[in-house]
Each structure stands twice: as structure tokens, then as C-alpha cells.
């Protein structure tokens, strides 16, 4: 066994212990990732309508519900409404943001 092999083994042993480290994702990071991905989706065309989400079995938040039942065309119901919601701003910038209403994805990130 050479000194170089010995040194390699010492370093390998020391660095392998990191394998056991478990990290939980900050909810604010999930919130920022989600906003970025939806913006990317929007860049290539409209999002699915809120009716589509409901038909797929997802719940929608109180603000989205207002949009869903509004007498406006389908196209007007497809933007990323969370972009103008204070829940998004809070969730992207705070851990355990004070947001609580049901079916808000940002609340779900906080609780995950």
C-alpha cells in the first residue's frame, strides 16, 4: 500500500460520511421554483384553464374560484393568477409564511 493509496482512502472515508446527511427543501425555494417553472410554461403558450384543473380532480383556491365562475372567456382564465397574489410573494420570501387558505400551492409547499 503506497502513501498515495493511504491518503486516497483517508479522504474517501471522510467524504463518504456526507451520504448520510438528509436535507429538507426550504418551502420558499419550492415556491420560487414553482413560479419559475409556470412562467416557463406560459412562455410557450397559455396554461391549462382552471376548469381543466378542476376536471382533473385538483382543488382551486378562493381567488381562482372567483375567476373560474366569472362570466369571461376561457382565454381570460388561463393566466398565472398567482403572479399577482400576495401569497406567492410571502411564500417566495419567507419560511412558514402566514398564508393558510385551502388549495393554494404555496400553502402546500409550506406544509410539505
Amino acid at each position, binding site marked *: 500500500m503506497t*502513501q*498515495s493509496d*493511504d*491518503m*486516497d482512502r*483517508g*479522504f*474517501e472515508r*471522510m*467524504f*463518504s*460520511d*456526507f*451520504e*448520510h*446527511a*438528509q*436535507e*429538507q*427543501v426550504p418551502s420558499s*425555494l*419550492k415556491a*420560487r*421554483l*414553482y413560479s*419559475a*417553472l*409556470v412562467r*416557463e*410554461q*406560459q412562455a410557450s*403558450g*397559455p*396554461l*391549462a384553464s382552471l376548469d*381543466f*384543473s378542476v376536471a*382533473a380532480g*385538483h*382543488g*382551486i383556491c378562493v381567488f381562482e374560484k372567483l375567476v373560474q365562475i366569472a362570466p369571461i372567456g376561457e382565454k381570460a382564465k388561463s393566466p*398565472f393568477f*398567482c403572479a399577482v397574489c400576495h401569497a406567492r410573494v410571502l411564500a417566495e420570501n419567507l419560511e412558514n409564511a402566514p398564508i393558510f387558505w385551502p388549495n393554494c*400551492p404555496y400553502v*402546500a*409547499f409550506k406544509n*410539505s
Partner: protein
Amino acid sequence: MQETQDQMRQPEVTNLPVADERGLISGVLAKDRKATAEFVGRCADWVYPYVVGRLIPRTEIVEDLMQEILLSAWQNLPNFRGDASLQAWILGIARHKVQDYYRKRIHEELQDDEESSPGPAELPRFDLQLDIAAQQQRVQRTLVLLPEAYGLALLWRYRDEKSAREMAELTGKTEKAMERLLARARDCFRRSWNDTER
């Protein structure tokens, strides 16, 4: 034996039921914002521990890399065939992105440094009395003190168990240059390790 070591290095995979996975993917491809939220939540949970572990202690780059991984997953999702689980697939993307980051940073470090002499081949004096948690903390404190490329080279070599030859091939440098970089990184680590004792 090598196969067993490779398996040990892979993050733990906990698959979604196939029907759930297919439903989630078709929802994301249809740009359903709610399915996308679930996708982001799950993918972030799978990928984050892997990425953080590979970039310790420089976590400032984690968010950028996570975003790159998720955007790449979204762009390539139409090509996902379901041969492997979604989790295994996205961890594959994460591995490539992390490796790309290592490759670029180490390549930059080696640009100006081709002719430097190797550092002394001296064994670090690791404290065998430290328990695992204390040792991890001290390794992290030590890595903070190192130039970024040195820390990444050590993680790539000793955590991902890449050989100097593989690292050289991936960075487009000679094996000799990579060995010199590793020698300097180890020497710097050894000196900084002793500094963290004080």
C-alpha cells in the same frame, strides 16, 4: 464490488405508483398549474438532498442548479418514456447538471494553472477521535476555507469516486494536470483542516 459501490452512491428511490406518475406527467405536459405544483414539490424533495450534498459548503449555487434541473426536466418531459421511474429519471438529470458544474469550474481553474508544480504528498492528520457528525461539520468548515475549484475537485474525486483520469477526460485536461490539481487541493485541505482545530 464496483456495482455495489455505485448503487450505494445513488440517492434512495421511492417510486410513485405508475398510474399516479402517468397522471402527474400528463397534467404537467398539459400545463395544468396544480399538477405542476405537485411535480415541483416532489422533484424538489427528490433532488435537493443530492444537489446540496454535492455542493457543500457553497450552497449559494444550489437554487440556480435546482432551477436548471427542473426547467430541463420540463423541457425533456415529452421524451420521458417511463423505462425508469420519474424519480430515477430526474435524479439522472440532476447528476448531469452537477457534473457539468464541476466540469466547468474545474476547467476554469485549470486554464491558468497547467504548469504549476504539485503540492507535497503529505498525509493529513485526521482526528480519529471525532465522531461522524463532528467530522462532517469539520469537513464542511474546512471546505469553506478552500478555493471553490479545490473543494469541488475533492468532492468529485472522493464523494462521487471519479478517478483522476475520468475527471481529466470530462474537463478536457490531461490526467497529469488533474493529479496536480488534486494534490494542491489535498494540501490546501490539510492545512485548512489544521486551521479549523484552533
